[in-house]
């Protein structure tokens, strides 16, 4: 079967984002024949993403609150520039239902899902209720506060141990305690009530099943306005620090060859997307236990940072699909069966951070070169002279390697990391190098506890390498001599 490309009416697309994702969207616009309008702010006059934008517009202001988050200003700017559609990228206003409403009231298309989907999925309680109604498994437990120990014990008996006593108002790992037996529930209940009352001023507790050795697995969805919903297989994003992903891979090594499980989780995600008449790019996130049972966590109603690994294994340009869907154009996907996965892709997020403490570390890039093996993609916004400021996210690039099998992808990633030279700016390349050599990572069975359990940062060699310093000084001397 062959598909003839329809003629697309050129549109004007404003990109309300910066950095690598703004470049990525601009490239897609150019390919489709749309005009991309890029923004630059007073605190980033050297916005490198403009390189790929057809038109440059000054978004006045310094902090994010008065620039990429100022909805009224952005809508006015879009009107002024005769914009047909706005792409929000990720972060900033990408999952803000009010922004998409304001745009549609101004007659401008929000390149993302419809308002209702953003609002429903943006709320943890309503999205879980919707998932339950759609027959999508959610983590077993109570949705309302459990008033007494007696009630907690009843619920625990029903859902099975181990369980988690969790403060309604808690978050970030606080106000939680795991219990493996009724005795532990007896012992911990009052303590968690006291703790959460002290910490959050609210002693209400939930009882939830504790997922042991969890995996973070998510399914990429793409849908159009005609009711077609497709999945693009899964990604495993279990390697996280501070609840943020740093390494992702597709497909999941934990699901591995279990095609039945893969089909099950992907079709579940499609079912959920259909239930909200989803019509754009989105990701359904699941938590999967060591027993391979999976439960719905949340749906991200935007393009995600790690979308390139899915593009690499399926060969489909997700940003292009997103733009096509928003303007009502054909996605050029004949059927779900046409979407096939080949090989394995890994992404390492390159961040301006201390590789040991993993804390953001702003600075200036004094040197930048690449020397990559075949089969490597680097989505980035780096250049010599780039100043990474505390104003924006510390992620400066996404290194993606692909191979027919996972081991080949890892080998390519190692070679790519060895050929990525960033000078002057602390970055997490040394951490990625240690992970790529780590036996636990190589076996592929790692869980979301990976960083805590294996502490790869402690295995980074910190000693001063004089030869490498000599090389850097020598290159600088040579440049100084005018060579």
């Amino acid at each position: 079967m062959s598909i003839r490309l329809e003629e697309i009416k050129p549109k004007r697309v404003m990109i309300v984002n910066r950095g690598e994702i703004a470049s990525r969207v601009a490239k897609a616009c150019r390919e489709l024949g749309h005009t991309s309008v890029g923004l630059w702010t007073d605190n980033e006059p050297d916005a490198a993403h403009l390189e790929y934008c057809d038109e440059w517009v000054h978004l006045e202001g310094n902090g994010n609150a008065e620039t990429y988050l100022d909805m009224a200003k952005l809508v006015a700017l879009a009107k002024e520039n005769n914009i047909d559609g706005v792409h929000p990228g990720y972060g900033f206003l990408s999952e803000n239902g009010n922004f998409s409403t304001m745009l549609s009231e101004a007659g401008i298309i929000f390149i993302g899902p419809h308002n209702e989907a953003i609002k429903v999925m943006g709320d943890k309680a309503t999205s879980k209720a919707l998932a339950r109604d759609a027959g999508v498994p959610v983590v077993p437990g109570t949705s309302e506060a459990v008033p007494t120990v007696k009630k907690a014990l009843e619920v625990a008996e029903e859902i099975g141990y181990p369980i988690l006593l969790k403060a309604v108002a808690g978050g970030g790992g606080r106000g939680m305690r795991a219990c493996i037996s009724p005795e532990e529930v007896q012992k911990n209940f009052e303590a968690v009530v006291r703790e959460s009352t002290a910490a959050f001023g609210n002693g209400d507790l939930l009882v939830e099943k504790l997922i042991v050795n969890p995996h973070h697995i998510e399914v990429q969805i793409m849908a159009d306005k005609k009711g077609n919903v497709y999945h693009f297989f899964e990604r495993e994003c279990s390697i996280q620090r501070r609840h943020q992903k740093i390494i992702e891979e597709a497909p999941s090594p934990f699901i591995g060859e279990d095609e039945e499980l893969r089909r099950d989780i992907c079709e579940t995600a499609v079912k959920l997307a259909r239930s909200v008449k989803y019509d754009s790019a989105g990701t359904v996130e699941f938590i999967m236990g060591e027993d391979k049972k999976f439960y719905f966590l949340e749906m991200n109603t935007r393009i995600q940072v790690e979308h390139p690994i899915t593009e690499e294994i399926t060969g489909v340009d997700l940003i292009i699909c997103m733009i096509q869907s928003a303007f009502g154009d054909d996605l050029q996907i004949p059927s779900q069966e046409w979407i096939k996965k080949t090989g394995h892709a890994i992404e390492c997020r390159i961040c301006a951070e201390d590789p040991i403490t993993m804390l953001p570390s702003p600075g200036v890039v004094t040197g930048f070169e690449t020397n990559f093996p075949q089969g490597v993609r680097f989505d980035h916004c780096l250049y010599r002279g780039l100043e990474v400021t505390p104003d924006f996210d510390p992620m400066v690039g996404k290194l993606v390697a692909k191979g027919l099998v996972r081991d080949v992808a890892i080998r390519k990633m190692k070679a790519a990391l060895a050929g990525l030279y960033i000078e002057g700016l602390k970055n997490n390349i040394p951490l990625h190098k240690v992970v790529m050599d780590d036996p636990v990572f190589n076996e592929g069975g790692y869980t979301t506890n990976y960083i805590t359990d294996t502490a790869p940062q402690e295995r980074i060699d910190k000693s001063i390498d004089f030869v490498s310093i000599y090389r850097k000084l020598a290159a600088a001397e040579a440049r100084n001599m005018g060579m």
Partner: protein
Amino acid sequence: MRTYLIDSENSEYIIDLTKTVQHSSKLVEYEFCTVTENKVVNKESIFIRKLAGNYYCSDDNKAWKKIARQHIPRRLLNVDQVLKVYRGFKPSGLSGGASGELLTQMPGKVVKINIEVGQVVKKGECVLILEAMKMENEIKTSVEGSVKAIHVSEGDALDSGVLMVEIE
């Protein structure tokens, strides 16, 4: 040329560039060593070759590796450390440039000028004091001769690379 590297704990590494051989317009050989407790260690030759606009380095003039081109760096990255680089001097101001032209190596303010035009200075003599990075640095001449010109005055705030004094 001596380079001082200072880490965040104020440990100091002294690296000397002991030899420069320009083999061709595209190939230079440098010899570096590290000075630890007055002993020379880690003596290494580094070759730099420019190829198609990029810089490559080699330890043996055979095996080459690409390297990120930098200006004379003020800071060097080593895993989780950003080392401050002082080329030809260190903040405590032990030495000056190799020629009769004294340039600022970093931005600073002229606190005191000890010389006058026409005065004869000896090697190692402190010619002026520059306040930089909240420290007073004695700027010493590494040549002997008479002061030809003084281009700055006390209180001037200077960028790096500014010519302060000429000695001939």
